[in-house]
C-alpha cells in the first residue's frame, strides 16, 4: 500500500525534473490514443518531431507559433504569481489584436505604426484584464469565473465587429480590412514567417523575470500571492498590487495579439488565435511560473501544435491530438506539482 506524506523540503532538481516528467507522462498517456486511431506510436511521434523541429523551416514555423504563447505564458505566470487567477489571456489577446489592427490600418510611417500598434494592443489587453481585477478588488467577485467568461464576451464582440462594420464588403468574408503594408512587422529570415514579434517575446521573458525577482513591484507581487494577509500587515497595498499585476498581465496577453496581427495574419479574423490564451496557462504551469521557463515551455507546446498537423496528414491521427496533449500536459504537471509538497511512501513494509 502507498500513501502520501508531507515533505519537509523539496530538492532543487525537482524544478527541472517535474516538467520533463510531466511531458514524458503525457506522451506515454497519449500514445494510447494514437494506437486507438490505428497508427504506430513511434511513427506518429516521429512525424510530429520531424515536422516541428526536423529542419530549419519547421523550426521557424514552430517559433512563429511559440511567440504568442511566450506572451500569454508570461501573462499567466505574472498573474498567477500574485494569485490573480487570470484565465482571460485569450480575450486579452483578441482585444490586443483588434486594437492593433485598428491602428495598423491607419496610414502612417511603418515604425510609428508598429509602435502605436504595440501600445494600443497592450493597452487593450490591460483594459480587459482590469475588469476581473477591479471586480475582485471592489466586490470580491471570483476572478477565475469573471476572467474566463469575459473571453466569450470579447470573442463575440470581435465576431460582431468582423461580421458587421469590418466585414469585407467586396468578398463578403467575415474578416477585417488588412493593416497597411508598411505596418507589417519585418521578417527575420527571408522565406519564412518568422517576424519581429518573436524577438520582442524573447526579450520580454528575461525582462519579466527581472521584474519578478529584482524589483520591489515583483517582491510585492510574490508576497501578495503567497500571503496577502502578511503583505497587508507588512504595509503592502494589496489591492494596488493586484491591479498592477492585472494590467501587466493583460498587456502581455495583448502583445500576443499584436504579434499575430502585425507579423502573421495582417488582419483580424475569427480564428486568429487557436486558443493561445488558454495554452498560456499550460505554458505557465509547465514553466512553474518562472518567466524564463516560459520560453522552452512555449516552444514545446508550439512544436506539439505544428507537429500534430503533419502527423494528422501522414498517419490519419486527428490533429485534435494536439489539444489532448496540451490538456494532458496540464493535468500531468498539476499532479507532478503534488510531489513538491508530498512524497509517496510505502507503508506496511516497516514491520
Amino acid at each position, binding site marked *: *500500500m502507498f*500513501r502520501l*506524506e508531507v515533505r*519537509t*523540503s523539496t530538492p532543487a532538481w525537482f524544478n527541472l525534473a517535474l516538467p520533463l516528467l510531466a511531458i514524458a507522462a503525457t506522451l506515454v498517456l497519449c500514445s494510447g490514443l494514437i494506437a486507438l486511431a490505428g497508427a504506430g506510436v513511434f511513427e506518429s511521434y516521429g512525424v510530429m518531431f520531424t515536422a516541428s523541429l526536423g529542419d530549419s523551416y519547421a523550426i521557424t514555423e514552430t517559433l512563429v507559433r511559440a511567440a504568442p504563447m511566450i506572451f500569454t505564458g508570461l501573462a499567466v505566470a505574472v498573474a498567477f504569481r500574485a494569485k490573480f487567477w487570470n484565465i482571460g489571456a485569450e480575450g486579452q489577446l483578441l482585444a490586443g489584436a483588434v486594437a492593433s489592427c485598428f491602428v495598423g490600418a491607419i496610414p502612417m510611417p511603418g515604425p510609428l505604426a508598429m509602435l502605436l500598434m504595440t501600445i494600443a494592443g497592450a493597452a487593450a489587453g490591460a483594459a480587459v484584464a482590469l475588469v476581473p481585477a477591479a471586480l475582485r478588488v471592489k466586490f470580491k467577485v471570483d476572478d477565475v469565473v469573471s476572467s474566463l467568461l469575459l473571453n466569450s464576451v470579447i470573442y463575440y464582440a470581435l465576431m460582431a465587429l468582423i461580421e458587421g462594420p469590418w466585414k469585407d464588403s467586396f468578398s463578403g468574408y467575415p474578416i477585417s480590412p488588412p493593416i497597411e503594408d508598411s505596418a507589417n512587422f519585418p521578417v527575420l529570415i527571408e522565406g519564412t514567417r518568422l517576424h519581429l514579434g518573436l524577438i520582442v517575446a524573447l526579450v520580454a521573458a528575461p525582462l519579466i523575470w527581472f521584474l519578478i525577482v*529584482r*524589483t*520591489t*513591484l*515583483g*517582491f*510585492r507581487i*510574490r*508576497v501578495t500571492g*503567497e*500571503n496577502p*494577509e*502578511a*503583505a*497587508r*500587515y*507588512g*504595509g*503592502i497595498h494589496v489591492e494596488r498590487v493586484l491591479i498592477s499585476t492585472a494590467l501587466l498581465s493583460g498587456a502581455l496577453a495583448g502583445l500576443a495579439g499584436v504579434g499575430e496581427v502585425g507579423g502573421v495574419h495582417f488582419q483580424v479574423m475569427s480564428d486568429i488565435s487557436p486558443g493561445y490564451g488558454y495554452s498560456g496557462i499550460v505554458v505557465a504551469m509547465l514553466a512553474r511560473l518562472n518567466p524564463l521557463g516560459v520560453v522552452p515551455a512555449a516552444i514545446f507546446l508550439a512544436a506539439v501544435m505544428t507537429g500534430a498537423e503533419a502527423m494528422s496528414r501522414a498517419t490519419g491521427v486527428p490533429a485534435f491530438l494536439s489539444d489532448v496533449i496540451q490538456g494532458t500536459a496540464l493535468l500531468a504537471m498539476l499532479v507532478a506539482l503534488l510531489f513538491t509538497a508530498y512524497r509517496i*511512501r510505502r*507503508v*506496511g513494509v*516497516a*514491520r
Partner: protein
Amino acid sequence: MPAPLIEMRGITKSFGAVKASEAVDLSVAPGEILGLLGENGAGKTTLMNVLFGAYAPDAGEILIQGRPARITSSADALAAGIGMVHQHFHLAPRLTVLENLLIGIPGKAGRIDRAGGLVRLAEISSQHGLTLDPNLPVSALSVGEQQRLEIVKALFRGARLLILDEPTAVLAPSEVDGLFSALRSMAAQGLGIIFISHKLNEVRALTHRCTVLRHGRVAGRVDDPANTTSAAMAQLMCGHEIVPPARGPSTPGADVLILDRISTSRHSGTALRDVSLVVRAGEILGIAGVSGNGQRALAEVISGVRAPDNGQMTIAGKQVVHFSPREVQALGLGRIPEDRMTTGLVTNLPLADSMVLPRIGTSAFSARGLLKPDAIRAFAEAQIKAYDIRCPGPMTRAGALSGGNLQKALLARELAFDPKVLIVSQPTRGLDIGAARFIHEKFLDMRAKGCGIIVIGEDLEELMVLCDRIAVMYEGRIAGTLDSADASVARLGLLMTGAEGKA
C-alpha cells in the same frame, strides 16, 4: 497495576537525516493521565501523529490492550479507541453541535440518528460535566465550548484514550478548572489521557505521571509530578537549568503610545468600546483577557490594519491619521503578530523575504524600485547570526523553520530598526521554555533601551513575570489596570470574567 491501555514500543521515525523520534517507549494505563512534555522539536507531535496514524513509524510497534495494532489512518485510530483534540479544532462552523457529533457516524438505514445522538450527548455531558446545547451552531460557541465539543466528539466515537495537544492555551483560568475536572472524571471512569502542555504548573496539578522527550528520545520519566518541582521538570526538558529572567525596576519615560477613547465597529470579532491606554517609554504593559474580548481589534488598530470609528491614537508624540501599517511603522511601531504564519511571514518564500517584508520600500533594501539583493541577504544573514536562528540560510523557505526560530526571525526583523513602541501578541505561544526565555530577555533589553512594549497575552503567569502593569480586557473594554506587584491570578481572573467590573 492494570495492563496498559496503550503501549508504544521503540517508536522510531526519521525525516530525511533528522530523527524526529528515536526508540521511544510510552504507555498509558486505564484511568491514568499521562503528561507528555518536551521542548518544540522534541518529537511530541511526531509521536502523537504516529499514534494517530498520520505517519508510519520506521520501527517500533503500538500495542492496544496488549495486542499489536496497525494504525495507518485516523480512521484506524478512531476504531482503536484513540481520540485526539488538536490545538486547531476540526469542526464545521455552520453545523450545530449535534450535527458535528454525527458527522461520519453511520445512521440507521441511511438516515441520521438524531434522537440516538441526543441521548448519547446527554449521557456524556452529565457523566463528565461537559454541557453543550446540541442545537447551537458551532460558530456561536466560545473557544472553550468548541474544545468541549471536540472532547465530547472523541468520547462520542468511543475513545478510551484521549490525546489533548496544549488544550489550555486557549482557555481562561476558570475554564481550565472546568477542563481539569472533566478530565479527572474521565480518568476516574477508566479512560486514559495524554496531556501535552508547556505549562508545568498545570502538568503538576493534573497528571499522574509524565514522560519527557528531548531531541526525539525519552529524556526521563516523572512518577510523581505533584511533588516534583517545575524547575526539575524544566531541566529534564532542556537538559540544563532554566533561570527566569529578572525584571529590574522600571524607569518609565514619556508616553510613546496613547490610545484615547478608541472605538471600533463590530466588523469582525469583538469591537472596542472607549479604550484608553498609555504605554510609556521603558515599560511593558500587559493586556490580559480571555481570547475574544477585543484583543484582536486592539492589535489591529495599533498595527494600523483597522481604522477606529472614534478616538485617537498617538505614537511617539505624533497623531496617527490614516491608520495604515506603513504609517504606524514609519512613526516607530514594531509588531510581533499573534499568528506568525498568517500575518507575519510568507511561508513559501525564502526567510530573507519575510525578514525585510515591512521595510522593502525603504532605502535599506531597495532604490528606485529595484531590490538590493545583497543588502537583503546580508541583513538576513546578520540577523540569523545575531539571534541564533537555526536554519540552513537566508534562502530557506520560511515555513521550514520551527515556531521558536520563526518567532526569533520576527523579533529580529522588528528590533533591528529600534522601534519606539512594540506591540506583541502571544509572544511565546507554542514556544518551549528555552525559546520563551530568549524572547523575554529581548523584551527586557528593549525595555531597558527605552522602548515601550505592549504585550497581549493569555498566559497570566507570563504576563506577571514580564510586565510592569497589566490591563485586563473584557467585552471590548478595559476592565481594570493593575500594577503587576499587586496582580494575582485570582484578581486578574475576576477582572477577566467581568466580575469585578460589575461589583
